[in-house]
């Protein structure tokens, strides 16, 4: 090793070390809150789904800003510091999980879905509220009975989480493109109807895609039986012939522009789509469907847990809860929201049937014909691996077409042939010149 590179490595190592050590320092001062107002500002890191909080758009309440104002006015003297919310977003539970698991981010509040909360509790990633913190969650009384205690199967007794939104999966269809007979039966079968080949969409995430087939055929969505998963794969393979694509948030675009005729999606998002295209309609399949709760939690390594409790409690109070429910469009577990006139008027503007769609059916009613727990539970590593592998085979099935093979092989073969031919010509030519040079030299000597 040269001296130069040695120096550089030492330099890098020192920098790297200082980076890690200062990270540790910060982690240690959790808990000690200065008794007198110090005038400093503490940052509260909130990590949420995209588009999942009222952001002050078109004169609505900016929930995060409102929390800062509320805290800095009333609570700052008690805590001894001001607060600033650092709000970041993720696209799905798995992204959030891998970021938290890898330790790449430090967050004080996260809002995952039920099955992910269950998984994170199991892995010791979430903070269990202390009695003192529990007492501070004074607004928890507004959360409906259906979401508390044993009803929160993912977190019995709400020891780690506070419900934020809930909802159910359903089928969105375009009345201009689908015949009445096919949607009046309100079945998952619409998504398997060969009449609409190339006009159907399916989720591009394994959990929801498999679940739609499993509700349809009354299979437990949380089964550990490999044969049942393979059966569900069979249904998805049959559907692959018919679907236009496997999509996630593209559903918004494809449904509102009528590029597709039917798709499974969440009720709250349907209301948003319907406000852009009046032909769209929605039902909960009679065979049963997914019921989910997204809830606010505090990661175990959060730096400001007490502050996070204040944030969670604030989000349960009327003004931010109503603003968030209006912005998100999902059903709210908060009784203050449903009673609010502002909420009712706002939802009336969005869609006339909003109440029927969001709150008309309880999860139990929607799943009267389904024999199992309709909520997703966290997978064991073995099941996760199996589902990964099956999803893989769904994607590779009939994935190649002949013309792709033919043209790529032709291109590769001709490039190689050209290269070989050129090399051959060059060799031949240089040999020719060498011979000639030798002959000329010979002639000169003679």
């Amino acid at each position, binding site marked *: 090793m040269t001296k130069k590179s040695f120096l550089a490595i030492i330099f890098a190592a020192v920098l790297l070390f200082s980076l890690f050590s200062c990270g540790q320092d910060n982690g240690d001062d959790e808990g000690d809150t200065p008794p007198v107002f110090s005038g400093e500002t503490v940052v509260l890191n909130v990590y949420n789904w995209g588009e999942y909080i009222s952001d002050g758009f078109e004169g609505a309440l900016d929930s995060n800003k409102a929390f800062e104002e509320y805290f800095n006015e009333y609570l700052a003297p008690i805590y001894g510091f001001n607060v600033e919310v650092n709000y970041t977003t993720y696209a799905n539970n798995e992204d959030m999980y891998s970021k938290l698991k890898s330790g790449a981010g430090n967050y004080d509040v996260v809002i995952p879905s039920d099955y992910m909360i269950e998984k994170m509790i199991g892995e010791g990633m979430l903070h269990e509220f202390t009695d003192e913190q529990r007492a501070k969650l004074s607004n928890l009384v507004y959360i409906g009975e259906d979401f508390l205690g044993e009803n929160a199967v993912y977190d019995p007794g709400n020891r780690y989480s506070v419900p934020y939104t809930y909802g159910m999966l359903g089928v969105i269809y375009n009345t201009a493109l689908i015949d009445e007979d096919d949607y009046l039966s309100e079945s998952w079968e619409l998504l398997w109807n060969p009449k609409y080949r190339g006009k159907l969409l399916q989720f591009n995430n394994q959990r929801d895609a498999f679940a739609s087939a499993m509700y349809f055929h009354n299979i437990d969505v949380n089964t550990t039986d490999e044969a049942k998963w393979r059966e569900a794969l069979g249904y998805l393979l049959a559907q692959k012939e018919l679907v236009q694509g496997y999509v996630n948030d593209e559903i918004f675009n494809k449904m509102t*522009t009528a590029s597709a005729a039917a798709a499974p999606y969440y009720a709250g998002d349907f209301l948003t789509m319907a406000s852009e295209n009046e032909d769209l309609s929605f039902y909960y399949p009679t065979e049963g469907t997914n019921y989910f709760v997204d809830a606010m939690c505090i990661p175990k390594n959060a730096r400001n847990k007490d502050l996070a409790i204040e944030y969670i409690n604030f989000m349960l109070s009327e003004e931010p809860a109503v603003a968030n429910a209006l912005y998100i469009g999902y059903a709210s577990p908060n009784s203050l929201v449903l009673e609010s006139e502002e909420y009712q008027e706002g939802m009336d503007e969005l869609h006339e049937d909003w109440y029927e769609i969001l709150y008309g059916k309880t999860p139990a009613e929607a799943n009267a014909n389904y024999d199992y727990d309709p909520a997703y539970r966290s997978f064991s590593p073995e099941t996760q691996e199996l589902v*990964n592998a099956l999803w893989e085979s769904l994607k590779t099935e009939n994935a190649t077409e002949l013309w792709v093979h033919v043209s790529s092989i032709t291109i590769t073969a001709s490039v190689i042939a050209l*290269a070989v031919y050129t090399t051959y010509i060059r060799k031949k030519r240089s040999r020719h010149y060498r011979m000639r040079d030798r002959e000329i030299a010979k002639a000169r000597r003679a």
Partner: protein
Amino acid sequence: MKKKGSIMRSIAAAPHIFWAILFIVLPLIIVVYYAFTDGDGNFSFENITSLADYAPIFTLSVELAVIATFVCLIVGYPLAYIIAKARPERQRFYIMLLMLPMWTNLLIRTYSIMAILDDGGFLNTILGTTMHIVGTKGAVIFGMVYDFLPYMVLPIYTCISKIDKNMWEAASDLGCKPVQVMTRVIFPLSMSGIISGVTMVLVPSISTFYISQKLGGGTFELIGDTIERQFVTGALNTGAAISLVMMVLIIISLTVMNRFSDSDEGGIIV
């Protein structure tokens, strides 16, 4: 005097070396570590051996990338030639036009293509047709060509514009017809530009993941999508193993290509 210079040089190089270690070498070591361990951190070859399952996805990714690169070359070479032969002030303008789409984020461009080509999208509405484009392999190839074409044109353009003008005259004087000037002089002389253009299109095309998800309609996966999904679902070891094998394959193919570019420099085709 000499010593002082070398200290200055190492100070100047330090940030780059630090950067390279932190963001290139270190991540590579982490990838290798994950590729050869199982979930509990024990040494294991299983990740690598289980990759046989992904062979169809590998093949499809390479095939689509090869086709896209070929189309890029067919479209890009004449374009580069035309730009290189234009008047200098025009050249700058054309290059700017070529770069213009790259000022927009690749994800946004791809999403826009999807909105334009979709079944109920802009194109079908304007033409009043019901073409099904999004969701086919053709759409993915189109997306790759659209997104990566500038990487093909720029090196070829640079190469052609560097060729001495006298070459054209000399070739014509020695009896070459215009077509022969092209095939026997200009094309071989621009070979190094073609090689780097091909490299710069082929490699990102093989490992692309967003284009295939949006324009392929999700009905098939390319290797980039697979790697992404492995990491998102927490299968870090398999994801790392696929990435590692990809890297090795790309390094091998680049080495082979560089061989050809060296031996072909100044060489003659046909």
